[in-house]
């Protein structure tokens, strides 16, 4: 019944609108609008354009400078983030200026040169000097932006410094997994054919560097130290996006990528700065990847370096948590794996293990 009333109401409104339209059309014909040289409502439209300019610019400035309830700039927490942020606001200054000026001219001219009965347009087909100027000026300004952008880009994409903390990040539908190299600071190999329900990242245990690798539930990184993320995906493309660090890099199946950056504020620093005791850095998927694309959240924790070291040393190697996978380790490396992963060895074997260690060193 309610639906019927709504439908009837809509039909009635449309009918009224059409009636109004017909009446105004007839009035227009009676007044001879069609015979006038200028379009009807020329002045009204010119005035509206001018009003739109004023209201639009007011809105633009009002909302860009504090009129919004929320802050639209995420706090920055990385070294290169400061550089790109500065570049962003320089670009904003330049484009903002051009935006305001050109819109003022566009709508201003529209208003000023609206049709006048005795008016005549000026035959003004070209002016080479003017055209050269406004080709050259944007070119120069853009050259400046290109050079500064290029410098920033080259810095950001340069090889990671020696001794950067290496962490592997893998995206899959619909979550993230991170792997640390463990005590040997070397990530073990991985092979997508080794992936199963437990070994989500496909760690390849024929590589001895993998024995002490650990897979925690949060991404921890140290403040003030360069961090190199080695990024991969195992099913479709994902994108590692951390807005606070101003970092983003796609995770592509079959093509490992990487990105390095230096966090400058610990999670605790950020909690103090934002006044939000529950603040957490987040890792976000930013490449369409399916049904759960919008829910690939992963918590990132930036620790003070000492806390980070402490946390790092407390982690249990994945192999120790899943001793079944010792069976995948080649026989000659088994003992070494047990030691590296910290698996309790039987007394009798200790001697052998020592020998093994000596021989591999």
């Amino acid at each position, binding site marked *: 019944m309610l639906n019927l009333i709504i439908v009837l109401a809509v039909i009635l409104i449309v009918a009224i609108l059409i009636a109004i*339209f017909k009446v105004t059309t007839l009035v227009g014909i009676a007044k001879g609008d069609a015979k006038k040289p200028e379009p009807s409502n020329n002045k*009204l439209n*010119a005035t509206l*354009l001018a009003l*739109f300019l004023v209201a639009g610019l007011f809105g633009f400035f009002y909302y*860009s400078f504090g009129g919004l309830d929320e802050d*639209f700039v995420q706090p920055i927490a990385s070294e290169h983030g400061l550089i*790109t942020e500065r*570049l*962003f606001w320089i670009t*904003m200054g330049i*484009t903002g200026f051009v935006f305001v000026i050109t819109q003022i001219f566009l709508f201003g001219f*529209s208003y000023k*040169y*609206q*049709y006048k009965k005795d008016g*005549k*347009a*000026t*035959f003004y*087909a*070209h002016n080479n000097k*003017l*055209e050269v100027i*406004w*080709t050259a000026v*944007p070119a120069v300004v*853009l050259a400046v*932006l*290109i050079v500064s*952008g290029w410098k*920033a880009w080259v810095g*950001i994409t340069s090889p990671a410094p020696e001794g950067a903390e290496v962490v592997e990040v893998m995206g899959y*539908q619909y979550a993230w997994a991170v792997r640390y190299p463990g005590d040997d600071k070397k990530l073990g190999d991985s092979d997508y054919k080794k992936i199963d329900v437990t070994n989500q990242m*496909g760690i390849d245990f024929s590589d001895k560097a993998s024995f002490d690798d650990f897979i925690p539930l949060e991404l921890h990184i140290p403040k003030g130290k360069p961090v190199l993320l080695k*990024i991969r995906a*195992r*099913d479709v*493309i994902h994108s590692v996006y951390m*807005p*606070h660090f*101003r*970092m*983003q*890099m796609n995770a592509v*199946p*079959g*093509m*490992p990528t990487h990105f390095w950056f230096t966090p400058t504020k610990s999670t605790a620093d950020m909690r103090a700065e934002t006044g939000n005791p*529950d603040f*957490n850095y987040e890792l*976000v*998927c*930013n*490449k*369409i990847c*399916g*049904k759960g*694309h*919008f829910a690939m959240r992963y918590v990132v924790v930036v620790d003070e370096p000492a806390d980070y070291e402490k946390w790092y040393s407390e982690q249990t190697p994945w192999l120790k948590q899943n001793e079944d996978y010792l069976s995948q380790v080649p026989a000659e490396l088994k003992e070494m794996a047990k030691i590296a992963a910290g698996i309790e060895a039987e007394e009798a074997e200790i001697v052998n293990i020592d020998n093994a260690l000596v021989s591999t060193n």
Partner: protein
Amino acid sequence: MSVADIHIGEEVHHDEHHEQSFIQKYIFSTDHKMIAKQYLISGIFWALIGGGLSIIFRLQLGFPDMSLEWLRPILGKWITSAGKLDSEFYLALVTMHGTIMVFFVLTAGLSGTFSNFLIPLQIGARDMASGFMNMLSYWLFFISSTIMFVSLFLETGPAGGGWTVYPPLSALPQAISGSGLGMTLWLVAMVFFIASTLLGGINYITTVINLRTEGMSFSRLPLTVWAFFITAVIGLLSFPVLVAAALLLVFDRSFGTSFYLSEIYIGGEALPNMGGSPILYQHLFWFLGHPEVYIVLLPALGITSEIIATNSRKPIFGYTAMIMSMLAIAFLSFIVWAHHMFVTGMNPFLGSIFMFLTLIIAVPSAVKAFNYITTLWKGNIHFTPAMLFSIGLVSFFISGGLTGIFLGNSALDINLHDTYFVVAHFHLVMGSASFFGMLAGVYHWFPKMFGRMMDEKLGYIHFWFSFVGIYLVFFPLHYVGIAGFPRRYYSWTNFDAFNSFTDLNAFVSIAAILTFSAQFVFLFNFFYSIFKGRKAPQNPWGSTTLEWTTPRIPGHGNWEGDIPKVYRWAYDYSKPGAKDDFIPQTVPYSHTPESNLPFENELAKTEDVSPVAQDAK
């Protein structure tokens, strides 16, 4: 889909059923004007569907708590038992909105309509070079449309991997249900679409090169024709690459090849594919995809050039510079594609190169914007609806173009890539600007298409609601984008970083609904005026170009009697000394000694004012 869409569907059928005896005239027509109208009506139909889809997902984004139970009669099982939009169908909506708007509305609906309609009329030709090919082009588009339309109703849903359909997501039905039959139909439809575009494009190019009337040199072509010409060339060079991309994707999907697939573990099994590269697809796609942006935009800019000059009663400022910038844009459009891929892991050195090339494009674009503004300067402006839409286009072109300077800068793109900043950018500069170009063209050439005038007042209402509405939709999205909100998100509530701006998103959705509603004013105006509009005078806007020398409703062959001969460029508006404020292209210099410039007086001496010798046949 919605009631209104069905209504338009009927309009299409209207032609088919009631005019059976005129099949040749209305359906399998080879007349460029009829084909243009077919493209236009199809484009309007698609615009309603594409727009309607966006309203559905805007409801989800603006009002995440709203019960969408009332959409169940239309969407069926895509409304979950909780009364919410299914999150996978959400992606399908986004995908189809993009596909439909970019290809079916702004490529076919815009180029297809106006290239077909205006090229022969403005260059003084009886028809396209090949009327049959032209007909074929429309009907391939129709087949493509049908297939794409059918894919909306599949049980597994239409394609859902984003309009760019990146593999592996688009290659693996395990990854998303839209990559099943929906994706297959998407690919098939696109192949037909590309064939249609190529047939159309070859025709436009040949026609412009070969069928210009006597005196219509390239330097006298209206900017519209220049724009259509350049657009067709871009399309011809870039669309085949999309065929290649699509074909390889078909192979990967159906025949077990590994062009784009490598080392994938999905659905509990490791796939055998090794050695492919998903990035290869992106290179191929964007080699079309970026020129495509200009395929969409250039015709709109051409239309705007014509309308702004006519209604300012002034010659377009910097005619040569306009052509040069279009050529520069066309050239550069082919060597900037990888700016869509700065964060794919592509070699950073390539990133540097593409940043450099991308930002250069801003120069010719700026020249165009400045020239439009200068054309307004000291004009005597008539604000027809077409003129308002053209001014709106320039405004969008500037607003959206400027944000391209951020995104083209690889260092800034790291943080902005795939956020709402990108959404705001391309919806303004490509979507809205081109859409306004299309509407401006409809309002301006409606009298020539249907011999009647559209209602101006309804045009004004349509313009103001659309113009203000579009800014209210897309301007706020810049803020959301700077805050890092990722696009193609069903909801942001999972993230602390994105739990703000709920009010703003609701506001954007309301603005979108208003803007969409305003389009029904246009629809009414359009269809009402076809049958009941005021009869149009022969040259309602006081325009100089050739199409206004045809009869009120041009018949087959466009001109009764001889094709007119052209003696001057298309922009002799308000020439000092002239009696009227425009001199049609068909008036010889020797007839206008009072207004001739010195070099024109020279030309007048050698002019041959005898009628066109013979029809080119």
